[in-house]
């Protein structure tokens, strides 16, 4: 043990800068060494800390899977829900109390496979929630099965000879359905990811940040890609930042180039904006706006 890491009587009581944002009584977390999720949680905590939004007004909702565990570590009102249903659960939280800033953090399988229908409808309605989709290209919690994001030819436990199903392009899906903000970063790009989280949270309406993360235990091992660290090195060498790129061009091929950036930023009326505006027109002065003093 080096001197720097030795816990002494002087250092043991020093607060960690994220003590107020993380549930320290739940540490250590369950994620594998070199998994990207710790970085995502750090970036989210930083973004929340800097946002100026009182932490009491923030709610985090997760589904099921490795990323599903995020809700359990962030010290705000946090909900670990059912597989695929984080978005409709978050929709209910937001609609019933529009003052809450509701953030969904879940995985690619949870949000895009079992929860795919909810994803597209929340984007279509422009429900004012932020969705962080952590994409590790595989079902990790259950042991490495193929996901709707697994690149063609990549190996998965249920595609033992390589994947032959074309994957979803998540930013294109969100864009097509009307999302107000769409970005993609990798867990290597910590500062840009943190900025994107802050921007997404500040954008009224449905905002999506996809974060490409390494899964060393399953995706990397099954595909002989080394460790999570090797994947970060791969991101370093193969990620290209193209803000405003046409979302149709954002497919991710197996070990191919990954395009990152902020692709969409187009505020448009949210579900509740439309509800209040429309009922205001229909009922006139008799209508008491639902959202009231939010703005």
């Amino acid at each position, binding site marked *: 043990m080096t001197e720097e890491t030795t816990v002494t009587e002087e250092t043991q009581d020093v607060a960690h800068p994220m003590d107020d944002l993380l549930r320290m009584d739940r540490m250590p977390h369950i994620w594998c060494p070199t998994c990207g999720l710790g970085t995502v949680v750090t970036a989210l905590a930083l973004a929340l800390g800097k946002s100026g939004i009182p932490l009491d007004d923030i709610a985090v909702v997760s589904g099921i899977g490795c990323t599903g565990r995020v809700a359990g570590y962030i010290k705000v009102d946090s909900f670990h829900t059912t597989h695929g249903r984080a*978005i409709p659960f978050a929709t209910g939280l937001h609609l019933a109390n529009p003052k809450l800033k509701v953030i969904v953090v879940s995985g690619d399988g949870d949000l895009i496979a079992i929860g795919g229908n909810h994803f597209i409808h929340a984007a279509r309605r422009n429900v004012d929630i932020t969705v962080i989709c952590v994409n590790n290209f595989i079902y990790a919690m259950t042991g490495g099965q193929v996901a709707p994001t697994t690149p063609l030819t990549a190996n998965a436990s249920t595609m033992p000879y390589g994947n032959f199903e074309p994957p979803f392009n998540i930013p294109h899906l969100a864009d097509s359905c009307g999302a107000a903000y769409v970005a993609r970063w990798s867990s290597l790009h910590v500062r840009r990811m943190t900025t994107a989280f802050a921007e997404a949270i500040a954008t009224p309406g449905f905002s999506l940040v996809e974060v490409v993360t390494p899964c060393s235990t399953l995706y990397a091992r099954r595909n002989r890609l080394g460790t999570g660290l090797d994947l970060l090195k791969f991101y370093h060498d193969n990620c290209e930042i193209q803000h405003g790129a046409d979302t149709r061009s954002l497919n991710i091929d197996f070990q191919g180039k990954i395009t990152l950036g902020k692709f969409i930023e187009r505020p448009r009326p949210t579900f509740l904006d439309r509800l209040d505006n429309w009922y205001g027109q229909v009922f006139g002065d008799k209508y008491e706006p639902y959202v009231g003093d939010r703005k």
Partner: protein
Amino acid sequence: MKADPKGVLTGAHYLDGDHAAAEGALAAGCRFLAGYPITPSTEVAERFAARIPKVGGGVFIQMEDELASMAAILGGAWAGKKSMTVTSGPGFSLMMENLGLGIMMEVPLVLINVQRGGPSTGLPTLPGQADMMQARWGSHGDYEIIAICPSSPQEAFDYMITAFNFSEKYRVPTLVMMDECVGHMTEKVVIPPADEIEITPRKEYTGPPEEYLPYLPDKDMIPWMTKAGDGTRFHTTGLTHDEKGYPVMNADCQETLVRRLVDKIRTNADEIAILEEEEIDGADVVLISYGISSRVAIPAIERARREGLKVGSLRLVTVWPFPETRVRELAKNVKALVIPEMNYGQVYYEIERCAAGNARTVLVPHAGGWVHDVDDIYAGIKEGLK
């Protein structure tokens, strides 16, 4: 606590059961309904959607499916609004997933199932009572739940308020198991003034936020609740959890949690039970029924009585938790229990179990699609007396 007058449409109305249920929900203070259209329940959502912008302070949203509807009302309830959804058989099957989450997270909410004939798509426009066991056991895992069966539009109104009150008192999703006949029959419904409607408030935590333990049970086994935004910064999960709401993966925690989820309802079963009894004393045979079947049974009972037979009636307004104490007692004092239900034996088997050989049990089955023929129920009574 009394009802908020904004949601109470005081007066005498001519309403069908679905519309009456929507009014009952509004009177109970429900301000969030997330639903998906399905016959024969849709009119509940339609009425709510039309009324909520006028009542104010609430939202109706038509979700993309029943999975989403159930998930959304869990969120709605955690955000502090009284929340509900409504469906029929096929949608009820989809809602089982998040009904389980509601049970695990102990969320007060109301789910109406206007039952139709099944299985599968079955008879969308015609009645059934064949989801009664699904109501009890439909979501995976072990739990207890509350289910109420109204038999008229007036009761659809009245018992929606009871359902919300039970759900708050016991922190458990409460089911209102109507059927197509009750949902679509139109009758007089009297809505009382708001100050005559008793509302059970949420069991709110009022202590220091930093000391809050979301699943620390009170003496009555029910934990105190907060809502998102209250400053307690709580965690809740569908995983087996401790008093902090944190996941704990072992048999001891599972035992403590599941036992409490079961016991908080089971030990209060007698208090929850709503039963209507008629001419039980001295009866040779007692007809046990619920929902629309209770009303269809009336002419059969009257005919038997005209012939001098001693027939009593026990109507189960609450079917779950099963009113075991009363049925066990009854079985010791009569020759037979006769059970007409629109299925091939569901609640019947609970009654047979509780009768424990002390009285004959006679099932008068019906596959659904229409109500029982009065003659069949009468024949069931005669069969019981053989």
